């Protein structure tokens, strides 16, 4: 990175944060601090929902996913539009009618205070621990590739987001997310254009797509019912629906993005904006990864993209052998692809089939060498990081993009990290203030200035906690997966609480509370005693919470009429 890159990077990231702080420096109203400007229109809400979901890992890992496994991962988003329709039709109208600040306030109104505290507690536990990862994960990749020390990157990112989120709350989050999404869009379009321009002469997008398709990278849709397949239309629609409903309907970091706004219409249109655009957006990011795969068939590339990790261990002759094998396999693969392109142009079907088989065999050999490289790393040190797909896109950025554009695309990663982190901090601060602090100090609820002050303190406290956790997380292995597991363990029961609240009117607070506690204990017990994919715990937690609620309600007295319980 040169001076132009630094100028673009710091100018955009610090500039947006400073603008957000300045624009919202006079926020005094609790409603504005927690729900944003009451005049917010659907475009801002839609962008804010999108920016909250799109973390830095989206732009680092998803192109790597496309590079490594193709674009089939897009099916994971197939449940999202359906979930957003349900949120629009059922969840959002109820949240707005009750005029709640948090989703968990609704549980208090519908059931009782203990159920509300349980829901809010599950959210704080899961999202609070995940908060450190959203800073740590991109920081470790960027600092590794650029050779920057990790601690200053984490501290700088954390302080930046703390300053503007604490200053303007939800309003600052929405204001900055608009500009951060603009930076993200500009950076990703720039990267795609440069990638297409860097493809070999005569290949172009169509030729590159044919190569990617022939090598199995464009298997976008799989209708197979085979349960061993990781990504299919069915897992995407059903699993994705379930996960998206949990995330958009019950996670305060998302709920806070759409419950404010000028009217119910604006919130609904903001969500529908995401329902329409999310799958095409993820498709384009994955396609970028598949095209990167084609690009690197014709361009020199390392056998292992995390070069810092490779150089740390690759000292002996065995690693030199692997590098030599990789160079040979890459050359053979490139020749085989060129031969296939010529055969394809010849209209000779037999020649094309033969060349295609040779090309696939060459690709298999190249893959085998990469697998050997990872195995060698693991053999050299079992703690070595053997996953390098997250480093593919950032390697392309640093080696292929012109100066200025490098700074812009690195800014994409920081903008995405800040936008998702800001939503998390605002949600954690709001939930702690509204569902816990005000619950235990009900008389303080009337003092608006004190409420805003306390919310600022809690937001800052969660920010400091996230930074401290991110710094500590450097010692942990497989942290991201651990956080995903933690989320799956708690998300299911949380969704179960809301499903019962919305759809099972005859179930009361005590039944659902004890059902949720039992279901949560069961899920935790199963996690420690069974060996099943952790995503299943979302379904198990939700289903058992619903089932236990119905069973308990049969033996417990009917619930008290709604409105008897105290609302915050």
């Amino acid at each position, binding site marked *: 990175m040169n001076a132009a890159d630094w100028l673009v990077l710091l100018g955009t990231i610090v500039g947006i944060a400073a603008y957000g702080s300045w624009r919202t420096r006079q926020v005094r109203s609790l409603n504005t601090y927690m729900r944003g400007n009451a005049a917010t229109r659907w475009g801002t809400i839609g962008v804010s929902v999108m920016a909250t979901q799109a973390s830095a890992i989206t732009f680092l890992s998803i192109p790597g996913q496309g590079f490594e496994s193709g674009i089939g991962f897009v099916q994971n988003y197939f449940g999202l539009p359906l979930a*957003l*329709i349900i949120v*629009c039709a059922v969840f959002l109208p109820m949240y707005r*009618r009750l*005029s709640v600040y948090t989703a968990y306030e609704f549980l208090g109104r519908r059931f009782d205070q203990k159920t509300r505290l349980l829901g809010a507690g599950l959210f704080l536990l899961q999202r609070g621990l995940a908060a450190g990862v959203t800073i740590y994960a991109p920081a470790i990749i960027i600092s590794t590739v650029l050779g920057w020390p990790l601690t200053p990157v984490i501290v700088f990112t954390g302080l930046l987001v703390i300053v503007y989120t604490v200053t303007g709350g939800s309003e600052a989050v929405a204001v900055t997310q608009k500009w951060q999404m603009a930076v993200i869009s500009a950076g990703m379009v720039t990267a795609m254009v440069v990638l297409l321009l860097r493809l070999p002469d005569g290949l172009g997008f169509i030729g590159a797509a044919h190569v990617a398709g*022939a090598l199995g990278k*464009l298997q*976008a849709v799989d209708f197979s019912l085979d349960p061993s397949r990781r990504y299919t239309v069915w897992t995407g629609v059903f699993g994705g629906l379930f996960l998206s409903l949990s995330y958009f309907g019950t996670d305060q970091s998302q709920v806070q993005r759409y419950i404010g706004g000028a*009217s119910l219409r604006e919130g609904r249109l903001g969500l529908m904006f995401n329902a329409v655009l999310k799958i095409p957006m993820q498709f384009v990011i994955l396609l970028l990864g598949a095209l990167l795969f084609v690009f690197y068939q014709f361009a020199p590339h390392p056998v292992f993209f995390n070069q810092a990790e490779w150089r740390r261990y690759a000292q002996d002759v065995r690693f030199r052998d692997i590098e030599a094998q990789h160079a040979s396999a890459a050359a053979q693969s490139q020749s085989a692809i060129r031969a296939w392109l010529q055969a394809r142009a010849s209209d000779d079907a037999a020649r094309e089939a033969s060349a295609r088989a040779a090309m696939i065999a060459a690709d298999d050999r190249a893959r085998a060498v990469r697998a050997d490289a990872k195995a060698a790393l693991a053999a050299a040190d079992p703690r070595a990081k053997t996953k390098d797909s997250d480093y593919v896109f950032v390697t392309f950025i640093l080696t292929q993009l012109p100066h200025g554009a490098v700074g812009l695309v690195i800014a994409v990663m920081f903008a995405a990290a800040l936008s998702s982190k800001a939503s998390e901090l605002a949600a954690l601060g709001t939930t702690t203030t509204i569902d816990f602090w005000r619950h235990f100090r009900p008389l303080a609820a009337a003092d608006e200035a004190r409420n805003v002050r306390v919310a600022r303190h809690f937001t800052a406290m969660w920010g400091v906690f996230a930074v401290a956790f991110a710094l500590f997380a450097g010692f942990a292995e497989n942290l991201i997966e651990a956080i995903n597991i933690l989320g799956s363990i708690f998300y299911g029961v949380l969704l179960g609480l809301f499903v019962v609240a919305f759809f099972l009117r005859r179930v009361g607070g005590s039944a659902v509370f004890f059902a949720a506690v039992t279901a949560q204990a069961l899920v935790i017990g199963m996690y420690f005693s069974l060996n099943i994919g952790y995503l299943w715990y979302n379904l198990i937690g939700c289903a058992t919470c619903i089932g236990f609620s119905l069973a308990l309600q049969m033996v417990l007295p009917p619930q008290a009429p709604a409105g008897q319980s105290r609302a915050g």
Partner: protein
Amino acid sequence: MTPAPRAEESPEGEAPGVPGFRTWRGVYVFVFGWFVLVVLLLSVFMEIFS
């Protein structure tokens, strides 16, 4: 401290205010149709380049 409920917002009575749509149900059907179309387009894309 929590603002009063917004009794005036009737979820089904409010028109979406989107040209071509008179009800929210129509908007939801459109979004679902768009989703089906996207899946079909992805299938066609896959067939063309496989």
